[in-house]
């Protein structure tokens, strides 16, 4: 059985739901906005996790779930809590329910796309960059400092320099300008990241299982997500086919980070060097699927179904006579 968690109208989740329906898969949907009508408990004994998840009037044994796709938004900001005081029992239950649900996913034997622990590498971009480099990718030359003079020297060396946040807090990638240099004294309060600008073509590679979907993004903006704002022109997206070598390298990178599903941001220079900027562990792939027509949601659905099929086949083999096992 497949479990999907999140808000069903959220585009990536809605797309995966549609694909699973198209494929005739059995799945259960946990709408986190209806948390008040859900419950979960688990027990751990002899290295096994057992328990139950109740969604409305239906109750499922946790062991039934072979694959999970959590697209949970921060439960503290659910619309259902907007009018609740900070100390309300509803707010408290919402937090503890989501916490228990997440704790279960961290230790469940099911395929989870993705667990929280491996996703956390993205909470520090320069930390993740070191892991990325260990997998053979180039990373942009980077300076993190609280000294304006070092930044000026870095800019003088590289010409074009960009700056952005290094934590999971989202920021818009900006190019360092002369006006920015005038306010560089502010970085004395908090070391800030600057990177040499890398010229080339943006590539977003979504890896899921052993599949990779690559999208080329053509724009003059530093941050193609905000191309309209930064250049007045939206980014142009198109499907590209990766070389087998680069595809394998991307799959290895995702696997090394423990990610079943990842959005890898690459840039290919005019000299065919491949730089990796970061790996997004919770990719909002719908933007790429809608603009380049790649079947990423179908890839997610296939991966979820493959885990379910594997469990079913394993159960079949365990209870089958020898001749049947050979036939399988």
């Amino acid at each position, binding site marked *: 059985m497949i479990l999907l968690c999140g808000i069903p109208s959220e585009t990536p989740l809605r797309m995966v739901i549609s694909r699973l329906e198209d494929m005739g898969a059995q799945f259960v949907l946990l709408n986190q906005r209806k948390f008040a009508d859900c419950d979960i408990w688990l027990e751990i004994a002899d290295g096994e996790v057992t328990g139950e998840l109740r969604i409305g009037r239906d109750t499922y044994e946790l062991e039934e779930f072979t694959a999970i796709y959590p697209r949970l938004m921060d439960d503290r900001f659910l619309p259902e809590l907007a009018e609740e005081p900070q100390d309300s029992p509803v707010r408290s239950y919402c937090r503890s329910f989501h916490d228990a649900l997440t704790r279960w996913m961290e230790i469940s034997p099911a395929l989870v796309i993705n667990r929280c622990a491996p996703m956390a590498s993205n909470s520090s971009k320069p930390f993740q960059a070191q892991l990325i480099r260990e997998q053979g990718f180039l990373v942009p030359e980077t300076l993190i400092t609280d*000294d304006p003079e070092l930044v000026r020297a870095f800019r003088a060396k590289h010409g074009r320099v960009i700056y952005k946040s290094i934590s999971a807090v989202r920021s818009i990638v900006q190019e360092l300008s002369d006006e920015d240099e005038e306010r560089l004294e502010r970085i004395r309060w908090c070391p800030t990241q600057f990177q040499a600008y890398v010229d080339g073509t943006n590539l977003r590679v979504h890896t899921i299982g052993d599949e990779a979907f690559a999208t080329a993004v053509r724009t003059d903006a530093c941050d193609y997500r905000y191309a309209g704002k930064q250049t007045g022109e939206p980014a142009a997206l198109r499907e590209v086919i990766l070389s087998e070598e680069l595809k394998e390298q991307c799959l290895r990178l995702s696997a090394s980070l423990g990610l079943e599903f990842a959005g890898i941001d690459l840039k290919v220079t005019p000299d065919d060097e491949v730089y990796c900027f970061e790996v997004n562990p919770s990719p909002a792939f719908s933007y790429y699927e809608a603009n380049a027509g790649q079947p990423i949601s179908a890839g997610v659905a296939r991966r979820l179904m493959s885990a379910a099929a594997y469990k079913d086949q394993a159960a079949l083999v365990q209870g089958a006579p020898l001749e049947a096992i050979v036939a399988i």
Partner: protein
Amino acid sequence: MWIVLCSATDASALWAYDGLRQMGLRPLELVTAEALASAAQWKHTLNGGAHLTISLADGRSIYSSAIRGVLNRLTGPAPEMLQRAVSSDRDYVQAEMYAFYLSWIYSLPGVVINRPTPLGLSGPWFHPSEWVYRASRAGLPTPHYRLSGRDPMDEAFGTLAPAGATTLNLITLCGNVYGGYVPASTARGCAGLAESAGTDLLGLSLYLNRDSRWTFAGAMPLPDLTVGGTPLLRALANKLTEGVRA
């Protein structure tokens, strides 16, 4: 150069610093979170490799290229660092500083006990449910564990040992157990748990169950090092100088 990275109030780390110095580990620098908070200059670069330079306010400079080993007991940037930010920016600064610390500590060369992870600067801080799961998988007896969406979240973090039970605190370092005698199977389980958590050093709490078996009660990557006494200090010194001797 070797470094003990810790808070100025971490008595256990200060004990280890004194002990390692007495064992002849030199040059050994004590670098506190508070000293880092008032550093005069930070420079952390990534290019072909990762490098770090910190100029401390007391005149000392830390160059990553000169570091041979680190005992890392940091849990995060000192609160003083966050106080400089206006209140509306404080959450952002906290996230940024944590991300920065994770990167520069991870980049340090040589032996780092423990290397930071996104789940904790001095090693992973798992939820009790995950510690129990991992302990059980590592072969340690575990108590009956139950977690419910109805449980108050704070209650999950107490000891798993029953009230009045005989307890024992141990430390594992690179496969060996310090702080008390336990049967070989228990020692293997403790070492297995540390390996599963990806830490060189791990503190464990055990209790004697009704069958007189040492049973898992909790784990943390930042234990009281004095539990391990001189044998642990000696092992730490050996581990920190391992690469140098090789």
